[in-house]
């Protein structure tokens, strides 16, 4: 297919010569070198180890799954951050240092959690025709909430509390990975747990959100032959270098807007837009910035967030593609979104997929079947509202540890509001899209629709910021100040 678009990164994956070259030993070595250079440009501190794992997977693709597990376990032992700081706090606060060492405590917690995941996975697989088999994820989530409540409020001895919190911290990190394993319970022949484990925050990176989804998805997108592997790797290189272009844009943006030095370059004058937490702190103290500064703060933070997420996700997916998995991008042209629902799909694809798999589908398939519009709306609310809220509640377990489960729920009022707002907006957007055909008018599709969608997310994203300890009133006050309405 001819393509006359101007490209910043050439479409190397569409070149028959390069695809052919990348299938031979010399070509593979060249690709790995180009990828290593790209990682180096991104300032990756562990690029040598990453490239070694990728080299093994490139030259011995028949052992891709065992190598993935080995690479992931190696990464876990060396680099993966499973909230070690928080775990260490528990270890110190509960006085465990008197009876045991930090390494024994941390390793035993991680091993116990992984064993729990394996046992739960096999238990579910062997429990056909039971409630557990039909609702394994719901059972897991409810049990996790119960354990959080026990850890928060039960008068347990300090040692037991330390081990319970430790288990909950690590399980909280892996809970959505385990959920994806459970989605795979029905697969024939399926994937053994030891290979599922390769996907529990793989060496290519991620967060509490599995990139890219679970073992079933990996089986589907895995390169099946040398040509597919070559194309996947060329796409990986393309994405890594595109991420580098975006990281330069982000660096320049930070320099111009916030005055942050970029490669030792600093502008004598910059826009000096305050950071959003600073602006919220000013609002809270009754000394808000001028309305136009608040607009600048909000807009700048939104652009920064989009660029940061794009760069981060692209590096992860680029590495995943180099490993031979043809994964879709995490962020894909969010500025082109014409509807609120489309932006949700384009901005953070794998988080959206997580919510769709574990909240949208179960609700949609079971409830409100006779009322189609309500069915779509409630399923969307379950995903973007309830699922979104639960995900962040589990992720921010340190707040639960500090405030107890009820205190944490109260502290989460801002995020709960955000999740409900998002659920409602996306639900209405889905219903609106169902009713009419997509407009093809250039001005509507390229200008007014994207601006409306981005405007919505730009304004509302303030409610989704990491918890700074403020109530909902501070956020509303910030927004009121943007339209020059003073303290009420």
């Amino acid at each position, binding site marked *: 297919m001819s393509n006359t678009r101007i490209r910043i990164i050439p479409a190397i994956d569409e070149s028959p010569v390069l695809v052919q070259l990348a299938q031979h030993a010399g070509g593979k070595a060249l690709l790995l070198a180009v990828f290593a250079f790209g990682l180096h440009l991104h300032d990756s501190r562990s690029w040598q180890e990453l490239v070694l794992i990728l080299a093994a997977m490139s030259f011995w693709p028949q052992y891709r799954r065992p190598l993935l597990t080995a690479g992931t376990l190696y990464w876990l032992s060396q680099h993966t951050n499973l909230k070690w700081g928080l775990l260490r706090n528990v270890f110190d606060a509960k006085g465990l240092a008197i009876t045991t060492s930090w390494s024994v405590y941390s390793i035993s917690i991680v091993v116990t959690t992984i064993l729990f995941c394996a046992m739960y996975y096999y238990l579910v697989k062997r429990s056909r025709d039971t409630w557990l088999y039909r609702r394994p994820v719901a059972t897991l989530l409810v049990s996790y909430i119960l354990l959080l409540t026990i850890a928060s409020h039960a008068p347990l001895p300090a040692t037991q509390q330390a081990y319970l919190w430790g288990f909950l911290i690590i399980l909280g990190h892996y809970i959505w990975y385990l959920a994806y394993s459970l989605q795979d319970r029905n697969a024939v022949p399926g994937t053994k747990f030891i290979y599922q484990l390769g996907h529990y925050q793989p060496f290519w990176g991620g967060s509490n959100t599995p990139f890219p989804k679970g073992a079933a998805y990996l089986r*589907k997108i895995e390169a099946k032959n040398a040509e597919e592997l070559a194309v996947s790797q060329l796409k990986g290189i393309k994405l890594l270098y595109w991420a580098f272009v975006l990281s330069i844009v982000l660096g320049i943006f930070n320099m111009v807007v916030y005055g942050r030095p970029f490669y030792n370059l600093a502008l004598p004058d910059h826009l000096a837009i305050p950071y959003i937490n600073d602006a919220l702190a000013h609002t809270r103290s009754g000394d808000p910035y001028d309305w136009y500064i608040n607009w600048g703060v909000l807009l700048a933070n939104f652009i920064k967030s989009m660029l940061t997420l794009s760069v981060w996700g692209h590096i992860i997916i680029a590495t995943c593609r180099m490993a031979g998995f043809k994964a*879709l991008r995490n962020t894909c042209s969010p500025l082109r979104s014409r509807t609120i629902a489309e932006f949700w799909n384009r901005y953070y694809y794998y988080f959206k997929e997580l919510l769709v798999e574990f909240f949208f589908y179960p609700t949609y*398939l079971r409830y409100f079947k006779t009322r189609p519009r309500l069915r*779509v709306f409630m399923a969307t609310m379950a995903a973007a509202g309830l699922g979104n809220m639960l995900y962040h509640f589990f992720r921010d377990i340190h707040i639960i540890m500090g405030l107890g489960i009820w205190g944490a729920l109260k502290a989460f009022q801002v995020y709960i509001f955000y999740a409900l707002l998002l659920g409602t907006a996306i639900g209405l957007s889905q219903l609106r899209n169902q009713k009419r055909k997509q407009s093809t008018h250039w001005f509507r599709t390229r200008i007014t629709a994207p601006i409306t969608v981005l405007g919505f997310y730009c304004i509302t994203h303030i409610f989704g910021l990491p918890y700074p300890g403020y109530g909902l009133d501070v956020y509303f006050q910030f927004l009121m100040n943007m339209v020059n309405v003073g303290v009420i």
Partner: protein
Amino acid sequence: MSTQANIRSFLEEILNDKGDSSGFTDQQLLVTEGRLTSLDVMTIVVFLEENYGIDFSDRPFDQNEFDSVDSITALVDALTS
């Protein structure tokens, strides 16, 4: 019309509504490639519920089963046989 042709025609309709007129084979993985979204999968679910009387509520749901004309056809055959 055969089940396969019926499903193919429905997928073409969904893609056309999205302005995607490039063709596809019966084996092509449309969800994996990002051409069909999760909401499109739900549209397919409703289509199968209404046209083939399938109830998805009490079986493990796997989005991968809705990835291609062939996989959807196999699913319908398995659940209606």
